[in-house]
């Protein structure tokens, strides 16, 4: 009988947007638009050997961050409703080239009619249609990424489907990762199915061990019908962490943060871990060992210093337990995540 190797977790950090998990009243809170804020968080995540860092709607900021980081994966949340596959696939492929294979795309769909009022394609799509369009969008993007041969020869590509009808040549060679990593948030039934069919990473907000284990088993089970193995899709759980020197100290800090957060406590917000670094490291490790997830997306409370405590105090404890990497082995995000490079479909 063979001993199963220790399951190592994956870690990502989310750059806080305008939402109610962020504490802005704290004097340590800084501008969320100054590049130095992004740079500090990204460098901290890289110092902590995180798999990736993700931002909403900003491939431009990620391209700049590629210049101040070397190994960290760079994920952009970009809407598949108000973009066109050719242009977005090209921007993602460019980021993958510029970063030496560190690009990822968190695919979201938009239902916001007021957002639609800003775009040429200002049409409203119902929920089911949005997923159909998103699935076709990802399929077209992958076709475009595969359109150059691995030897660097561009070849024409054509696609005619329900939402897109395009033909021509792509302007960018096949990305270093083959395909940038595709991420999807998927707690709903459509989201789970879409992730099982399409994504490399799925985000979840399951808030207990039991619901996490159920989600994990359900999503991994769905993979087989798409010819995929459980390792082909990583499940990452959104969490916020509050550290203290003692459990009581941490609870006090958590209460203070809650008082400062912009609105009332959000029950759908990320699961909160409050405690000493030892306790938090133990709980996170436990969730991964018991197959409630493959890793975590940290949502810091503070910009830009919100990751410092976790990286300085929790990561070393996870490493001591053998639960997290002690160095980056490869250069690409796929290698950090343990995902194989997609086979070229000529």
């Amino acid at each position, binding site marked *: 009988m063979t001993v199963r190797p220790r399951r190592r977790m994956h870690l990502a950090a989310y750059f806080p947007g305008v939402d109610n998990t962020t504490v802005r009243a704290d004097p340590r809170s800084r501008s969320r638009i100054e590049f130095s804020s992004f740079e500090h968080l990204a460098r901290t995540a890289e110092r902590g050997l995180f798999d990736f860092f993700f931002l909403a709607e900003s491939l431009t900021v990620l391209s*700049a961050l590629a*210049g101040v980081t070397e190994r960290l994966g760079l994920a952009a949340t970009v809407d598949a409703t108000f973009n*066109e596959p050719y242009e977005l696939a090209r921007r993602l*492929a*460019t980021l993958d080239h510029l970063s030496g294979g560190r690009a990822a795309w968190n695919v979201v769909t938009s239902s916001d009619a007021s957002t639609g009022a800003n775009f040429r394609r200002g049409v409203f799509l119902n929920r089911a249609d949005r997923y159909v369009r998103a699935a076709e969008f990802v399929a077209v993007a992958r076709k475009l990424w595969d359109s150059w041969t691995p030897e660097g020869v561009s070849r024409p590509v054509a696609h005619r489907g329900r939402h897109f009808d*395009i033909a*021509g040549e792509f302007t*960018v060679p096949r990305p270093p990762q083959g395909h940038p990593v595709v991420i999807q948030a998927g707690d709903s039934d459509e989201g789970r199915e879409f992730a099982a069919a399409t994504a490399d990473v799925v985000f979840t907000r399951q808030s207990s061990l039991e619901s996490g284990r159920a989600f994990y088993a359900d999503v991994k089970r769905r993979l087989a019908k798409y010819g995929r193995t459980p390792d082909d899709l990583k499940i990452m759980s959104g969490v916020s962490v509050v550290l203290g020197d003692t459990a009581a100290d941490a609870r006090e800090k958590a209460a203070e943060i809650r008082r400062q957060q912009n609105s009332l406590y959000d029950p759908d917000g990320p699961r909160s871990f409050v405690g000493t670094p030892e306790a938090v490291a133990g709980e996170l490790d436990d969730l991964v060992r018991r197959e409630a997830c493959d890793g975590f997306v940290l949502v810091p409370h503070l910009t830009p210093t919100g990751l410092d405590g976790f990286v300085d105090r929790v990561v070393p404890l996870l490493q001591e337990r053998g639960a997290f990497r002690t160095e980056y082995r490869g250069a690409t995000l796929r290698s950090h995540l343990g995902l194989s490079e997609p086979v070229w479909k000529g």
Partner: protein
Amino acid sequence: MLHLSAAVDQPSAYDAGSYVELARLAERGGLDFVTLGDTFARPGPDALAVLSRVAPATTRVGLVPTVTTTHTEPFHVQAAVATLDWVSRGRAGWRIEVSATEGEARLFGRRHAAPAETLWHEAGEVADVAARLWDSWEDDAEIRDVSTGRFIDRDKLHHVDFEGTGFSVKGPSTVPRPPQGHPVRVVDATEGPARRTAARYADVALVRAASPAQAGAVRDQLRADAKDFGRDPDTLRVLASLLVDLGDGEHAAEPGHGGGGPRQTAQGPLYRGGPVDLAELVTAWHTDGIVDGFHLTPAEPRRDLERLVNGTVALLQHRGLFRTFYPGSTLREHLGLARPANQYAVTGGTS
């Protein structure tokens, strides 16, 4: 004040390193800005992404990617340019271009190719709505109010309610007002349909001209048109755009060698000669007030940019015609253009 800029385009380059090197070289020469072309019609990376990658590796040189307006979303375009301005701390420009071919139209499958007149009219609308969206956040809309924990002062965000011929945008933007207020808009004004748009909206107009007479005539027309649009013509910089091949060596100051000026070629006006002769040409055109400066596209990217910086620029600096250091930090400052007032701010308070 003489303004100089150079293209950093290279065939089949997709890695960051080579672009960073060229931009740093241009920055060493004190150039106002570098441009990087972009089209869906030929191989090449997304130019705005490349220059965003270049931004943290440089500190002063302006960064001007081409971003097309025909098949893109005006809202996304303005947000990307504003973000480039943020990540470069006020060094962003935007070279506005259109996509005229049916081949490009088929990559999107949304509309057919249209005449240049139509496309440049729309490009003007995109330039217009972009400036409105940059202004849709007042400069001090992002706040950090410790007592209330508020992030945005909603009274300082504005709808733009723009109705164009082929698109409409409600606003406000998703990006706070960029450091320069409005990143610098650049238009190649050589062809008729683009010229009107340049006169109305551009901060910098490029003119591909083989003779001083030709360049001067276009500049005069641009300035007159700008005035008709209610602009102060002195807020428009007109740069002569030349291809330069400096492969004939450093010693080419002999009479007749490149001395005949640029020749018209299929790729545009081409100057071939030595860096010293090029300095003479720059001096002559600029001293006569024909143009405000030059936009130079090296025939051989690395070789010619090196010769341009180490030869031509060094000589112009020696003669006191070109800056030896950057007195300002933003692209607008390099170009001597003021930071525009916000069209929505009631108090009009800008720096």
